[in-house]
């Protein structure tokens, strides 16, 4: 198969398993996000793929050739870290030119290529700046340009946007996606941020305790979390079963399972809503008013109201269920 295949990889540190029996597939030209909480082993997995960590078991192959024993610098993969790891003693142009110099690209061809790459990542004219004079977002853009300069067969990104603030992260995730698609780069990123994963990736693999618990096209994984913990990690805040799920099932129509996961925005105050709740608390947030509501047969859940609505604890409200913000979970024990 063209692209990356990781088969049965296992790594232990002093007897503690960090990565266990991980099998992944990433077709050429696609972007895969490995999503998991910190300490789940996703960075170790990335290091194995990069060739920085020798696995105890299993193989890594690319385009059908086993690369497990090949040293990092000969794999043709590039790696981008959370904090960019720009070389502080080199300016922006020299950082981007670094992989070109290693490939002995003619000097005359380097400068135009660097300019092109800096334009691509949205930093035109920054050639002579020092890394220290750049903002965190700019540093990541330079790191991306440097990684792309290597024309890697596979680009590995280790929490590429985690060090940035929220607004910048959203914008850069979109840019990252565009750049990867327009350059046709095969990329694997590890992250703990489900929004980042969903924005940037075609495919998502959910990792937990050293194992891949679910993988597939991003939309599939998003809509059908494999279990409660995966659902929580994907941003579902409430899991209902028993009477609560029974109450909601008619509203969702066919296909709803025994257990239903709700995102924070799944219930909205709406005069035409089918559910009746009592406001317990209300707080104004950026995109509206966030409520805790006691709903009959369901219990206390989170809901949102439009900005400008006046609500106080004790008020009764009608709530509408937004089906797109729910997911059906397979059978399994409920509870936290």
């Amino acid at each position, binding site marked *: 198969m063209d692209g990356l295949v990781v088969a049965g990889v296992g790594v232990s540190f002093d007897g503690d398993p960090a990565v266990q029996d991980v099998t992944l597939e990433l077709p050429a030209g696609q972007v895969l996000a490995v999503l998991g909480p910190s300490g789940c082993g996703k960075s170790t997995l990335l290091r194995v793929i990069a060739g*920085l960590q020798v696995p105890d078991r299993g193989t890594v192959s690319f385009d059908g050739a086993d690369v497990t024993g090949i040293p*990092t*610098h000969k794999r043709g993969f*590039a*790696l981008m*870290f959370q904090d960019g*790891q720009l070389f502080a003693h080199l300016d922006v142009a020299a950082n981007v030119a*670094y992989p070109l110099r*290693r490939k002995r690209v003619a000097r005359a061809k380097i400068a135009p290529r660097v300019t092109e790459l800096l334009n691509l990542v949205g930093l035109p004219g920054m050639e002579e700046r020092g890394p220290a004079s750049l903002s965190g977002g700019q540093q990541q853009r330079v790191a991306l340009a*440097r990684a792309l300069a290597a024309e890697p067969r596979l680009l590995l990104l280790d929490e590429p946007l985690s060090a940035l603030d929220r607004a910048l992260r959203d914008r850069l995730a979109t840019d990252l996606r565009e750049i990867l698609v327009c350059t046709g780069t095969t990329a694997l990123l590890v992250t703990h941020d489900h929004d980042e994963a969903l924005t940037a990736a075609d495919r998502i693999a959910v990792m937990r305790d050293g194992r891949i618990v679910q993988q597939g096209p991003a939309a599939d994984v998003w809509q059908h979390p494999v279990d409660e913990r995966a659902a929580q990690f994907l941003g579902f805040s409430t899991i209902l079963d028993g009477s609560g799920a029974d109450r909601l099932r008619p509203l969702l129509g066919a296909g709803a399972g025994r257990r239903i996961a709700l995102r924070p925005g799944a219930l909205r105050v709406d005069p035409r809503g089918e559910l009746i709740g009592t406001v317990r608390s209300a707080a104004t947030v950026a995109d509206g008013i966030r409520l805790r509501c006691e709903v009959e047969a369901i219990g206390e859940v989170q809901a949102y109201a439009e900005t400008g609505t006046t609500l106080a604890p004790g008020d009764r409200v009608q709530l509408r269920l937004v089906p797109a913000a729910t997911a059906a979970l397979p059978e399994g024990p409920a509870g936290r």
Partner: protein
Amino acid sequence: MPSRWPRRAALTALALIPLVFLAVFFVLPVGGMVLRGLHPDGSWALGDTWSVLSRPPERQALWFTLWIAVLGTALTTALGVPVAYVLYRLRLPGRRVLRGIVVTPFVLPTVVVGVAFRTLLVQSGPLGFLNIDASWVAILLALVFFNLAVVVRTVGAVWEGLDPRAEESAAALGASPWQVFRTVTLPALRPSIISAASVVFLFCATAFGVVLILGGTRYSTIETQIYLLTTNLLDLRSAAVLSIVQLLAVVVLLWGAEIARSRKQRTTVTAGRGGLRAVRFSDAIPLALTGLVVLFVVAPLATLVVRSLQIDGVWTLDNYRHLASDGADNALLVPVWQALDNSWRIAIDATAMAVVLGVIVSVLVTRRGSTRHTRGLLTALDGAFMLPLGISAVTVGFGFLITLNHPPLDLRSSPILIPIAQALVALPLVVRTLAPALRSTDERQRQAAAALGASPLRAMVTVDLPVVWRPLLAATGFALAVSLGEFGATSFLAQPDHPTLPVVIYALIGHPGAVNFGMALAGSVVLAGMTALVMGLVERLHVTSMGAF
């Protein structure tokens, strides 16, 4: 802000203590020595300066100092960097022990090293066939032996703290291991290498004991020439001229090292991301070099111990028994054990002084100056207390004798003079060990403590003490070891009936007779054993700033 004044006054008062000490016991003697040379009989005699420097013996000494120091620095750095890599970057079994072995020579007394190398290299010694006894090669080897620790520790400490991800990024971008080293690692290490190399150059150029013992009459450096001029020829003017040349060179060098060091502190060091990595086949060359270096460090010491246990090839403890005597042909005025007792008393006094002053200086130089003016002042202060490291101990020692000999400071026959001189030598090392630890505490921690109601003193106890007690203990041990082995200044100041152990060892090798030489060997082993013991305990504290520059 009136409330700031008492604090500023207190800091100034605190600063005065070490400054007065430095003024009285360093500037005054060195200045007196220089003045005596250039301003004899009440008139300046600058015109003769050049003629002194162009005389054959002085010119030879200058020339020899320069090239032996350059060669010594080059060789030490070339060996030290790969060893630093192996001992601070590779997951090598027994690396702690190896680190201990490689850095031991730095605190070994110069006389011990001199004696050890002679034992190794004399005709009848294990390496006698090389025929390099009393040659410049012997001096070069001894200088490398001494200073390897400086390079290994200084570069190793930085290397250990380098974030491996920069190297990993480069590897992932297609750089081979050698290219990674050349384009990423070396630029990050460069300031520490420059810093270490300049300190090594300083130590090589001002080496006294080893050159005196190994160089015989054939080789002389500026330092031994000053000694010769003052003690044997009583030519103070020439000695002063040489001292000034040395002083200027040292100031320039320290200034350069300071620039390199401040740049080192600017490069971000992310500590402890598990920088150690498994040994690879490609590490064969540095590993082999490390093996060679360990052998090189162990061989002279092992020979010294073995020879001290033999007389005419027969195993015996007689050399040690003789330490209770005053040597054959009354080589000494007191038994060696008496000298050992003196050494300890003096070293403890010197250590107490060096540590008290060192703490004050460290606290001062790690303050963040609020204005450019204060910052400049603090840097100058920092540099001033490094000076004794590079000034000829002989100049200091002799300066003591000629300036502190009249009221109100008539200390010439006072027993306090030797500890003061030794404290002066140990002080820069104490500051270099303590200051990085004090600097590493975040100012905001102190501010947080203050905001929670802690007084400045209380905040220091809460925030700084937990970080500083290990380096403080290490610095104390370091000062003790250095004082025990100090030879240059002590040899000038010690009264014949009240010598220290290094002085006695030097006296013993100067006297003919197998018994005396056997005693020198035994005495050297005892002295080396004590300093190694102190440093072994210190090593257990794992203070990386110690011995790093």
